[in-house]
């Protein structure tokens, strides 16, 4: 196959956000795009996450992004003609400390003000929803029915299929080595497989996005951190909502196939590119899970793996242009929730590339917010 050596836009990263942006461009008839992926599509965090779709956040930006994206996920199965296994079984968020209770009050007030119908739930009501749940230490919970889970692979592979059919080139196993500039404009992207002339680059490289920005002298505050996750054998579905606790750093849900999928964060995790599995995770996950649902003792763990959170100081993504280099769009720093907010940020990125007015105001997500501005910290990160 003849490789393109010139493109209207080069997208770095073959994950949900890179392919999603190309998808929204293609929907508007713009297909002069090359996607570069240094491994295979969906090899990074897009294929390593728990598929959670949550709108219950503490910062207004994340709530806004997640609310609009959830609406878009509701339509996406039909649009891609794929079974994305999108189940809106809700998120049951458990509070275990008084500090959490206070934070949850603020979260629910803000969410309701923004039109999200999150409700307070007593421990007893939580047990009605999930009779197997151990509520002995649960102080309260919040619940939102329209939160849920999606199966990540068909989303990303669905985008890839539509893009290939539209003639968009997706180059796997092609690593970006350098981005060449002329003044404050992008001239070309040099890869492990030749050079592509372009004036537009989207940095959707997840855990590697700071390295990509570095190539044009743009400093991003994102740092990669390993987060581990596991799946059990499948069994009859009994668990409707995703259950999460910020206090424990745990999340788990039951997929359409019946497997429990979940993860727990290690507070001592060191910064860096590390996607190996640990014994700490296996044991901690097992202990915490059987504490939450004692019947899980007899359930078998099938497989564990790890992926990277591309983490920003305020746990909110970096979207849009940068002051130093023209047409260098950021689409990174998702801090562990890049899949669930992807539909709307990808749509907006496509609009920015085409010079259209963004359908959602994303100015507060610019990288410039880190220069002296007061940051609105996101507290509700899990996993």
């Amino acid at each position, binding site marked *: 196959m003849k490789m393109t050596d010139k493109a209207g836009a080069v997208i770095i990263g073959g994950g949900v956000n890179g392919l999603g942006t190309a998808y929204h461009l293609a929907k508007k008839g713009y297909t002069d795009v090359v996607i570069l992926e240094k491994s*295979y*599509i*969906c*090899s990074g965090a897009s*294929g390593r996450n728990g598929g959670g779709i949550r709108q219950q956040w503490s910062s207004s930006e994340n709530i806004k992004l997640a609310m609009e994206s959830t609406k878009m996920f509701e339509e996406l199965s039909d649009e891609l003609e794929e079974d994305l296994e999108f189940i809106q079984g809700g998120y049951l968020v458990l509070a275990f400390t008084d500090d959490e209770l206070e934070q949850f009050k603020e979260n629910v007030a803000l969410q309701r003000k923004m039109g999200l119908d999150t409700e307070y739930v007593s421990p007893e009501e939580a047990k009605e929803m999930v009779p197997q749940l151990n509520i002995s230490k649960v102080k309260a919970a919040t619940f939102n029915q329209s939160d849920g889970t999606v199966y990540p*692979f068909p989303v990303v*592979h669905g985008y*890839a*299929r539509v893009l*290939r059919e539209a003639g968009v080139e*997706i180059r796997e196993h092609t690593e970006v080595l350098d981005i060449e500039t002329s003044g404050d404009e992008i001239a070309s992207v040099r890869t492990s497989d030749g050079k592509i002339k372009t004036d537009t680059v989207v940095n959707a490289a997840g855990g590697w996005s700071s390295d990509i920005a570095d190539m044009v002298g743009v400093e991003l505050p994102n740092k990669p951190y390993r987060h581990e996750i596991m*799946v*059990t*054998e499948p069994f009859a579905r009994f668990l409707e909502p995703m259950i999460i606790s910020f206090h424990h750093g745990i999340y788990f849900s039951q997929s359409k196939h019946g497997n429990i999928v979940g993860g727990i964060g290690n507070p001592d995790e060191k910064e860096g590119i590390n996607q190996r*599995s640990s014994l700490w995770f*296996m*044991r901690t*996950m*097992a*202990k915490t*899970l*059987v504490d939450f649902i004692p019947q*899980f*003792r*007899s*359930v*078998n*763990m*099938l*497989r*564990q*793996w790890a992926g990277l959170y591309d983490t920003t100081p305020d746990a909110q993504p970096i979207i849009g242009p940068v002051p130093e280099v023209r047409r260098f769009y950021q689409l990174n720093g998702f801090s562990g929730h890049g899949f669930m907010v992807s539909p709307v940020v990808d749509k907006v990125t496509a609009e920015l590339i085409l010079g259209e007015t963004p359908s959602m105001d994303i100015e507060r997500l610019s990288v410039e917010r880190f220069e002296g501005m007061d940051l609105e910290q996101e507290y509700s990160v899990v996993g």
Partner: protein
Amino acid sequence: MTVTICRCEDITEEEIVEAIEDGYTELESLKRHLRLAMGQCQGKTCIPLTERILARKLGKGPDDMDEPTARPPSRQVSFGVLAGDEDDR
């Protein structure tokens, strides 16, 4: 004749060939696309078989195929055992 390659997830040779033709030309992406090797056997049966189908389609030798990353635990273990419950040992 239908040849079943992955019994855990019920995947046939035909489906694998179709996926390869759709651009899933390595074991890691075939796995994610078809759920191959994600079932109870963790790929012990289907991976060597798929490796041969893929090698044949790509005109390569089975040893030229990259194996998917092995994920612990290599066989199923209950949470009771992993959590260290005495009565499960």
